[in-house]
C-alpha cells in the first residue's frame, strides 16, 4: 500500500456537500484539504455535447457505474435480497459535482415542523395513535437555527421563487405554508407555459395556494456573494439527468469548484475510490482508497469528512466498522436506521386537449406547486393520512423518446403497429397529467440499511442492502394525492374546454406502486442511515454531523436526515452541512472533542 503524506482534512466525495465543506474550511482556515472523488472530472464545456437522450436519459452516462457497485433490495428482513442490476428507482451521480450536476434544480426549504416531527406528531395525534413501528425522530436542530444556512445556500445557488412567508407575513402568490424566511428569494420565479398557468389557475379556483417551484436554475443573470456570475436559464429543457451547458443551473462545478480550485490548500483527486476509514482507539486516522490504477493508497488525515451521499456514507461506516449496527428486532443500534425514500401519488387522470399544448422548452424547476396538503395541512379530511406532501402540475413535452406513445386509455388495441402509431402521433403534446405528488416518507423501524451477506462490489466489498417496503400510510397518501390531482385535472379541463379522463398517467416518478420497486424512477431522494439527533442512543451523528463516537469524523448530507420530507432534499443537505462546517471551524478546531 502506498502511504501519502498526512493532510489536515480529507473529504470523501466531491459533490455539493463535499465541496461546500472544502470551500468553508479553505476559506476560513489555513488547513490543507484533500477531496477524494470516485468519478471523473467534469466541466461545463462537456455538457453541450451531452444533450442526448439516449446516452444520458436511457443509458445513464453520468451516473455511477452500476456494474461496479449497486445496492441489494428486499421487502422485509426475513427475505434474501437481490441486487438492483440496472438503474430504475434512483440515479446516483458520479464525478466532480456528483448528483449535483445532473439534478433537476428544485431547491426547497423543509417545513418548519419537519425538524421536530416526532414531537409534532405526538402532540397532534397522541403517542398511542401513531402506527406501530413508526421511528420518526426530531432532528435536534430547529428550522430557526438552520434559516441562515438555508439563506446561504440559496444565495450561493441563486434560487428563484416567490416568498409566501416573509418573517411571518403571509404573501399571496408565494407558498403561504412555507417556513418563515428572513429575505425574499435571491431571484424571481421562472417564466411559465400555457399548461403551467392553467394548473395554477385551476388550483386557485379550487381555493388552493399555488406557488412557483423554488428553482436553482437561474431566472436571470446573477452574481452570488462569492462573485460568481452565471447567466439566466435558456429553457433548453436539458436539466434533469443532464449537466447545464451554460451554468444557469447551479451545480457544484459552476459555483463551488471555481472558488476552491484556485486555493493552494485545496486538492481534488478524481478516480479515487475510498474503501475504508482507517481508525484506532476512537479516532479516525485517514482513509484507504484505490487510485485510478487500482493501487491501494493510504491518505492519513487529522479530520475525515464523509460527504458521499446516503448510500456510500452509510456503507463506509459499516465497512470501516464504525458505530453500532442497527437491529430492527430490538430497535437498538443506530447505524443504518431510518432508510426513507419519497412517497408518490396515484394517477389523478388526464386532461386531453383539442390541439397540441406542450412545447419542448423548459427548465427543471419551472412550474407551480401547492402545499395545501403538505405536512399537516388539509389532511384531516383523509383518514389515516398523518403527513402529506406537495402537488405540482403543468409540464412540458419532454424529450422525443420518453414522451412518445402517450395516448389516452383505450386509444389503440395494442401498443405497436399502425393504429398505435397513428394515435401516438395524434396525441403528441396534447395530454397533461395534473398532479405530481411529492410526499413525505415517514421512517419505520423495519426500513433500514446494512451490508449484504452475498453480493459484492468490484473490489469484493459487501454491497449495501436496503430492506424497505411501502406501508399502509404511503398507500393512503397516494390515494389522497390521486383524489386531489383528479379535482385539479377536472378543473383544468373545464377551464380549457378540454376533456378529462380517469386513469392513464405514465412517465418518470409519477405514480405509486403497491409494493416498493426498483424498476421505474421514483426519485434520487434516498435518505438516512447515519442520522443526526440529540442523543447517541438514537442517532449516528450529533446535530453538527459529528460522529458521536469519533469526534474527528464528520458525516454530512442526506444520510443525516432522520426521515424524508416532502421537499427535494438538496438545499437542506447543504444547510446542515454549512452548519456542520461552522461548528467544525469555530468550535472543533479550538477544542478538539465532542462539540457540546
Amino acid at each position, binding site marked *: 500500500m502506498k502511504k501519502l503524506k498526512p493532510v489536515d482534512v480529507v473529504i470523501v466525495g466531491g459533490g455539493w456537500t463535499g465541496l461546500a465543506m472544502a470551500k468553508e474550511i479553505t476559506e476560513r482556515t489555513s488547513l490543507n484539504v484533500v477531496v477524494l472523488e470516485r468519478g471523473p472530472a467534469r466541466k461545463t464545456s462537456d455538457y453541450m455535447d451531452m444533450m442526448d437522450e439516449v446516452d444520458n436519459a436511457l443509458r445513464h452516462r453520468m451516473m455511477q457505474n452500476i456494474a461496479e457497485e449497486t445496492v441489494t433490495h428486499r421487502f422485509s428482513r426475513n427475505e434474501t435480497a437481490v441486487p438492483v*442490476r440496472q438503474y430504475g428507482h434512483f440515479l446516483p451521480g458520479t464525478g466532480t459535482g456528483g448528483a449535483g450536476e445532473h439534478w433537476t434544480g428544485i431547491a426547497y426549504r423543509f417545513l418548519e415542523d419537519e425538524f421536530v416531527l416526532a414531537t409534532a406528531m405526538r402532540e397532534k395525534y397522541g403517542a398511542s395513535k401513531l402506527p406501530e413501528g413508526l421511528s420518526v425522530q426530531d432532528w435536534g436542530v430547529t428550522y430557526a437555527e438552520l434559516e441562515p444556512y438555508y439563506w446561504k445556500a440559496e444565495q450561493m445557488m441563486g434560487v428563484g421563487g416567490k416568498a409566501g412567508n416573509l418573517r411571518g407575513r403571509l404573501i399571496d402568490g408565494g407558498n403561504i405554508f412555507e417556513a418563515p424566511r428572513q429575505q425574499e428569494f435571491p431571484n424571481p420565479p421562472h417564466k411559465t407555459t400555457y399548461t403551467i398557468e392553467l394548473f395554477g389557475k385551476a388550483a386557485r379556483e379550487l381555493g388552493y395556494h399555488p406557488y412557483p417551484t423554488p428553482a436553482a436554475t437561474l431566472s436571470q443573470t446573477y452574481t452570488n456573494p462569492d462573485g460568481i456570475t452565471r447567466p439566466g436559464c435558456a429553457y433548453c429543457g436539458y436539466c434533469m439527468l443532464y449537466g447545464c451547458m451554460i451554468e444557469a443551473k447551479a451545480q457544484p462545478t459552476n459555483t463551488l469548484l471555481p472558488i476552491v480550485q484556485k486555493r493552494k490548500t485545496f486538492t481534488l483527486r478524481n478516480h479515487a475510490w475510498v474503501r475504508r476509514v482507517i481508525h484506532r482507539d476512537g479516532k479516525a486516522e485517514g482513509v484507504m482508497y484505490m487510485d485510478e490504477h487500482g493501487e491501494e493508497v493510504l491518505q492519513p488525515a487529522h479530520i475525515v469528512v464523509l460527504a458521499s451521499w446516503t448510500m456510500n456514507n452509510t456503507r463506509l461506516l459499516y465497512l470501516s466498522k464504525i458505530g453500532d449496527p442497527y437491529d430492527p428486532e430490538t430497535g437498538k443500534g443506530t447505524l443504518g436506521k431510518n432508510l426513507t425514500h419519497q412517497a408518490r401519488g396515484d394517477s389523478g387522470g388526464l386532461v386531453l386537449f383539442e390541439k397540441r399544448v406542450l412545447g419542448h422548452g423548459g427548465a427543471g424547476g419551472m412550474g407551480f406547486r401547492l402545499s395545501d396538503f403538505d405536512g399537516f395541512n388539509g389532511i384531516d379530511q383523509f383518514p389515516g393520512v398523518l403527513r402529506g406532501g406537495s402537488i405540482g402540475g403543468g409540464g412540458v413535452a419532454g424529450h422525443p*423518446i420518453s414522451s412518445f406513445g402517450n395516448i389516452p386509455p383505450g386509444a389503440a388495441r395494442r401498443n405497436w*403497429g399502425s393504429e398505435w402509431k397513428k394515435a401516438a402521433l395524434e396525441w403528441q*403534446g396534447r395530454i397533461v397529467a395534473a398532479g405530481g405528488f411529492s410526499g413525505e416518507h415517514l421512517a419505520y423501524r423495519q426500513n433500514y440499511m446494512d451490508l449484504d451477506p452475498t453480493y459484492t462490489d468490484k473490489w469484493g466489498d459487501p454491497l449495501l442492502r436496503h430492506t424497505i417496503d411501502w406501508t399502509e400510510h404511503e398507500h393512503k397518501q397516494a390515494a389522497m394525492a390521486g383524489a386531489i390531482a383528479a379535482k385539479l385535472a377536472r378543473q383544468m379541463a373545464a377551464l380549457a374546454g378540454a376533456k378529462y379522463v380517469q386513469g392513464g398517467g405514465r412517465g418518470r416518478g409519477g405514480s405509486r406502486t403497491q409494493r416498493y420497486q426498483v424498476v421505474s424512477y421514483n426519485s434520487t431522494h434516498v435518505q438516512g442511515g447515519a442520522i443526526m439527533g440529540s442523543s447517541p442512543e438514537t442517532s449516528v451523528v450529533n446535530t453538527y454531523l459529528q460522529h458521536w463516537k469519533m469526534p474527528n469524523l464528520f458525516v454530512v448530507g442526506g444520510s443525516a436526515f432522520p426521515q424524508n420530507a416532502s421537499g427535494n432534499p438538496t438545499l437542506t443537505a447543504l444547510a446542515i452541512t454549512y452548519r456542520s462546517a461552522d461548528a467544525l471551524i469555530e468550535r472543533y478546531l479550538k477544542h478538539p472533542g465532542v462539540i457540546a
Partner: protein
Amino acid sequence: MRRREFISIPAKGLGGLLIYSLTGKPVRLQAQDGTVKVPLRFFTAEEAKIVQAACARIFPSDESGPGATEANVVVYIDRQLAGPYGRDKYRYTKGPWVESVPEHGYQGKENPQQIYRANIPKLGADFAGLPPEQQDERLEKIQNSLFFRMLRQHTIEGMFCDPMHGGNKDLIGWQLIGYPGPLMSYRDEIGKNDTEPFRGKPKSLAQIVGHPVKPWEDEAG
C-alpha cells in the same frame, strides 16, 4: 474477426409525401433514390433483415408517415447491441443469479446481445418475406416476451434518437413528431405559449454544437 456484413436500406421511401396527421398538410421531404449499404457491427445480414422487418411492423411506414425502415432503426439497434449496452458493460452482472419478483426488474444473466441472438430465430427465417398480416401474427405470439418489449422500446429509440446513433435518419423521426432537436435556447419562445408543432427542418446535436459528437456506443473497450 467476423466477415463484414451489410444491410441495405431502401432510400426511395424518403421521396414520398408525408402527411402530418395533426395539420393535414402534406409536406415533401428531401428526395433520395436507390439504396444505402450500411455495414453491420453485431447482426448478421440475415438477422438484420428479420429485425428490420419486425421493426417495420412495430412502427410501420403508412399513411400517417414514415416508419422504422426509413429511419434506419435496425442500424440504431445494431450499434446499441455492439456497444457497451449490448454487452452489459454498465449492468451489475455478479452472481448468484436468482429469479425474483417483477418489482426487482430483469434479473436474467443474458445480455441484450444474447437475448436478440437467441430470439430472432423464433420469428422464423422466412419472417422478412412474409406478408404483413402473417408477420403481425408471429409478433403477437411473442408480444408479452422480454425480447419483444426490448424490440419495441429499441424501435421507438431508433425512431427518435439523435442521428449520431444511427437511427432517425435524416431527422425523419423528429420531423414526424415536430421536435426541433436539442436547441440551446427557448428563451424567446417559452413565455409565448405557442402550441403549434415545430414544422421546420430539425437540427441534430452535431449541427447545433457545430462539431461531430461521439455517441457512447462508439466508446472503446
